[in-house]
């Protein structure tokens, strides 16, 4: 059985022979590194995508083989290409998932019913019942009909500051009633 350093030396020698044009050595090299690359890829990617990325890595090794001259360890060179292609794949996958949209109608059967019909007794009038008449009018004009404090004051014959104070007091009473 080969020890670890001998195993890499054999693989490196096969690769260098393949680079020199020996097709058989090159094939033995690719067959030899495939299981190791597959393990590395499957540590980071789902199994469904691993084989595609493995093939990308093998093609990249083939394209970049002229950048290895045999004078340095082979594994860092292989791992650099493998990491590069894994990161490339992940970048594309994230970009695609951000662009894709899902038609919400297709989820209608899956999503739970999150809205409820408001019952007759669930009305804002209940909250306003204990609020004095004048403050009730102020809240209705400002928060239901959308008038500003100045406009509300003009309608009711009050100063703007008085409207604001009255609205504040009314909201405080409602909060106390709701227990918040």
């Amino acid at each position, binding site marked *: 059985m080969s020890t670890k350093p001998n195993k890499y030396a054999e693989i490196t020698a096969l690769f260098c022979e393949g680079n020199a044009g020996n097709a058989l050595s090159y094939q033995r090299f690719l067959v030899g590194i495939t299981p190791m690359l597959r393990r590395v890829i499957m540590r980071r990617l789902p199994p469904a995508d691993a084989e595609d990325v493995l093939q990308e890595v093998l093609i*990249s090794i083939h394209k970049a083989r002229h950048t290895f001259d045999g*004078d340095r360890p082979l594994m860092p*060179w292989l791992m650099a290409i493998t990491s590069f292609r894994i990161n490339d794949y992940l970048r594309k996958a994230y970009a695609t998932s951000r662009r894709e949209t899902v038609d919400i109608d297709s989820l209608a059967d899956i999503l739970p019913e999150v809205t409820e019909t408001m019952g007759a007794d669930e009305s804002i009038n209940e909250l306003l019942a204990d609020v004095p008449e004048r403050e009730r009018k102020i809240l209705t004009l400002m928060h239901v009909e959308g008038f500003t404090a100045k406009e509300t004051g003009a309608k009711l014959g009050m100063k703007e500051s008085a409207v604001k104070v009255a609205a504040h007091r009314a909201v405080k009473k409602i909060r106390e009633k709701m227990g918040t």
Partner: protein
Amino acid sequence: MNTEQLIASLSGEVTQKRALGKPAALGLRMGAVLALYGLAAQWLLGFRPDLAVQFTHPLYVLEVLLLVAIMLTSYAAALLTMYPDQYQYRSLLHWPTRLVSLFAVLIVVQLGMSGPITVIHPEGIGCTLCIASVAILPSAALFILIRRGATTTPQLSGLYAALASCSVGCIVQRLSEHTDSMQHLAGWHYLPTLIFAGIGAWIGHKELKW
């Protein structure tokens, strides 16, 4: 196609491919060409008449030396990025950024010494265009060279290629221009250089994929 078929296909088309060679040998060959180019650019622009006097000023000398160091380390880093594993000299890739940081400190110190910042005159754009003109050919040459490799850091390759080329422009300009206003130099020489380096990174991202 499954993996076994792919392996058979790749093995079938393998031929002896000319190796890229070692980065040192590649660097010396390309470096000789770039050095000649830099000298030619300097000869065209000339030297400032008080250059000998300027070389007695420590800050001027330090500035020029740092520019030369940035040029050399960026060039070396750009060459190393041609290899997927940076020829296993990955630590050298950090040197350009360290030197640029040191250079930035030097510029800021000199800016502080030069007094309050005044309006930067728009005529200075000529210096920026001069640096860009000097940098274009070496940038293009470096990009073409890097494409022959297989970079796993295309943005970094582009950034260092542009930085090295613009450093040549900055050195040539600094040795020829009779201006020592640090506000002018920072605004029209060095800041545009950083911007060009950023553009180089963007071009690298687009053009150096393989």
